[in-house]
Every structure is written in structure tokens, then in C-alpha cells.
């Protein structure tokens, strides 16, 4: 996973071996995720982590992505720009990245839950969906009658 924007990045790259570019935040984050998973399994309490609040080096981000692995689900939400929602290889750990219409990364989060809220359909939308469908069916039956 890359929290930094892709090609527009001009971050200075250093010719250093990986351990020395570790801020130490990556490993701390993995511990935090582990604890969040345990908490979720026990009490069902979900956790979200704002990755922009945690300074990570590029190498460290890559390393973390490797540690979490690749999962089975990969969804894209289209609203006010693109949002990608994917489960990592560590079940229950989700990565969510928000972009705007010009594909600029606006925010990146880790969520520990069985299903991120963004994937679930809002209750009002379901009601509205039912209303709309009902309305459509009514229109069709009226058309048939005519």
C-alpha cells in the first residue's frame, strides 16, 4: 500500500539500507492493529486509524503492506472522486484510500472491522430504494393498465 500519491511524489529518496529508514512507527502501528483485532474479536468494537497522522517512510509503508498481505476483496466507491476499499491478507484489516476527482489522494485509513461502513448500504438508501422500486412498479402497472 502506498499512502503517498503515486507519480507526483518528489520525496527525496535516500540511498540507505532499509532498517535505517524505519521511523519505528510502522512496527508500532502493526502492534496497534493487532490489539484492535483482538478487541474486535472480543467485544465487536471497530477501530479506524488515520494514516496521515502517522509519519511513515515510503520504505516503511511498503514494508507494512507486505506484512499485512493482499486479501480477497477489492471494492471501489465512486462518490466525490474514487475511494478504494480493500481487505488486506490479514482478515478484518481493511485499507481505505480516498481520492478526489483529479485522483489526488486525500486520506488513507486502516479500519479493523468485519465490514467497513462505507461498503454497507445506508438504511435510508435502502428505504429510498424500496420506495423508488415501488414507485417504478406502480408506474409499470399503470402503463400495463393503459
Amino acid at each position, binding site marked *: 500500500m502506498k499512502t503517498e500519491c503515486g507519480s507526483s511524489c518528489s520525496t527525496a529518496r535516500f540511498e540507505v539500507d532499509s532498517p535505517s529508514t524505519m521511523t*519505528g512507527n510502522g512496527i508500532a502501528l502493526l502492534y496497534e492493529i493487532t490489539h484492535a483485532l483482538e478487541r474486535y474479536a472480543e467485544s465487536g468494537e471497530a477501530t479506524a486509524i488515520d494514516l496521515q497522522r502517522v509519519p511513515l517512510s515510503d520504505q516503511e509503508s511498503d514494508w507494512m503492506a507486505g506484512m499485512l498481505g493482499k486479501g480477497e476483496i477489492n471494492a471501489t466507491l465512486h462518490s466525490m472522486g474514487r475511494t478504494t476499499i480493500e481487505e488486506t491478507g490479514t482478515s478484518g484489516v481493511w485499507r481505505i484510500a480516498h481520492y478526489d476527482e483529479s485522483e489526488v489522494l486525500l486520506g488513507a485509513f486502516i479500519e479493523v472491522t468485519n465490514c467497513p461502513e462505507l461498503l454497507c448500504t445506508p438504511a435510508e438508501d435502502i428505504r429510498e430504494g424500496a420506495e423508488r422500486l415501488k414507485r417504478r412498479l406502480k408506474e409499470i402497472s399503470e402503463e400495463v393498465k393503459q
Partner: protein
Amino acid sequence: MSKDDSLVDVLQRSGVSRRGFLKFCALTASAMALSPAMVPRIAAALEQARRPSVIWMSFQECTGCTESLTRSHSATIENLIFNAISLDYHHTLQAASGEAAEAAREAAMEENWGKYLLVVDGSIPVGNPGFSTIAGISNKDMLLETARGAAAIVAVGTCSAYGGLPHAAPNPTGAVSVADLVTDKPIVNVPGCPPIPVVISGVLTHYLTFGEIPELDELGRPMAFYGQNIHDRCYRRPFYERGQFAETFDDEGAKKGWCLFKLGCKGPVTYNACATVKWNQGTSFPIESGHGCLGCSEPDFWDMGGFYEALSTPLPGFNEAIAYGTAAGAVAGLASGVLASRVKKRAKDQHQTVSVDDLEKGESS
């Protein structure tokens, strides 16, 4: 767009779905540096939020703060926010000029008396009112007048927050900060030279969302953005811990990205969100591009010793003090030594030979 529209109304008109609103709330929380756990509260607050009137005034400044804000990177989110406020008066951005501009300010003030948000960038000269005037009104008078009807004031940039560059010694214009003149209104300082755009928008969003100013530190800065110093959040911190420092800007250490403490980085005493939020669409921040932090969000950063002198060095004058002390000490020591030698010599001169008959004490007197 009516002034009574809520933000949600604005969003819905822009065709934003409920999932989109959730996304917006998550990003708003992030922009305000609040925990993602706050998202439901933000969503609830935003549904109630009304568009406040904003008056933006610029005094002794360089327009860098406005530049910073207008180059704020996200087309969508900040736009939405600014669509949701009513920017009724902005020295730099408004189309109106002259009397029409002043009329707009007065109208906005009258219409929203007691409710509008006043944003100020630039310091205020109190030396001579003629140093900086707008429409013939001195900066000080205009600030005091406008502040009277404001609900809260946001001082954007180090100049309005702490006096900034105009305040630097010897401060020829007698520049002061907003808080030096206005003491009866809630003031949020958003220092930085310039401040980080998303911090400016984050603070405005906070006010817009919750209708109150965020939690502040002792220097009037929002804790959410200025709660931690650059040094603690710096990705080069491990090099500091290991004692690996760049000695010059072009040595091996500099190339390897080692800590810039010795090159004068003021990260340890600078509280700002640069290391996490970063600049230029989240690309990097000064340390990441190889230059030490100047401490621009701190009061008097211009006078904190050389930008390229390590933080632990004293301000100019210490070496001289030591030199004068040494010289004075040598003289005083010699004088004291001469005095002591005299005492000793006199004792020798007064010496009476002690014989065995002198060992018993004489009659006590």
C-alpha cells in the same frame, strides 16, 4: 445559495450520496486532525451547521498566507467547505474595490453582528498609524472596530498570531499580534510562515462544524495541529537517536538523510503538523527536502539565533561574555592574589620565634 442553507443542503445539491457524505466526514475529521472515531459526531454536527459569514482582513503581511490557502490541494473538499462559508470580505480576493469594498465590509458586519468569524493575516503596527492604512483607516482602528462584532477571530500566519517578521528586532513599525490588541474575543492562532493550507481550512472547518473554536495550547494554537513538535514526528528522528548527523548540506550524512540538528534545525522547539500533514499535496516538508526546520510557527522565530546554528548553542554574545569574564577574572584574581601575598608576607614579618618557653598559654586576656 441562501445563508440559512446547511452544509448538508450544499452537499446534496452537489449530488453527493450518503456514502459520499461519510467519505466527506472522514476526510473532515482527518483535516481537523480528529480521531476517526469522531466521524459520527462530525456527521451529526454538519447536519446542523449553518453558513457563517467570514470577514478576512490583511494588514502587515506578504499575502503568503492567502497564497497558501488558495493553493490548498484538494479541489473537492476545501471547495465544499468554502462553498459553505460566506466569504463576505477579503482584501486580496474580493472583486470590489474602494468604497464599494468598505461598504461590503460594513454591510456584512451589520448583518451578522456578533456572529461573524474574523480572519486576520498580517501584524498590526502600533508605532505610527500611518505605517499601514486601508481606505485611510489605520490597521489598528480597523481591527478593533471589526473585532467588536466578531464571534471569534482566527489569526492566520505568524504575523497576526505573534507579530512575525515585522515584529523581528528591532521592530521598526511597532508590530504586534492580534491577541496583543484584542483581549475580549476567542482567538485561534494559526501560525506558520505560511501556515499549512489544510490547517487553515481544518480550523475553519472546525468552527463551521462545531460552531466553536477548537482546544488551544498556551500559545493559542489548536492542539490538534500544534500538539506535537516537528522533532518528535520527524522521519529523521531515528538518526538523531543514533547520533547520525549531517555536518554540512552536501556531505555524506546529508545525502543519506541524516538528522539536520547540527545544521540548525529548530524541529525540537517547533510545534506544527508539517511532519505529518506535509506540504504541496502531501508531498513533503522542509526537512524531507533536506533543509532544517526554521521554526516558523513559533513566536519570534526570526530572533531565535541563526537559522543554521544548532538549537543548543546560545544566542550571540555568549562567547564574548566568557571572554570578558575570563579577562576580568584574571585581573580580579591577580588583585586578590596580591592581597593574599601581602597578608602572608606580613605574617612572616611578624613571626616571633617560638621557643620551648613559649608553648604554654599566657594569661588569658
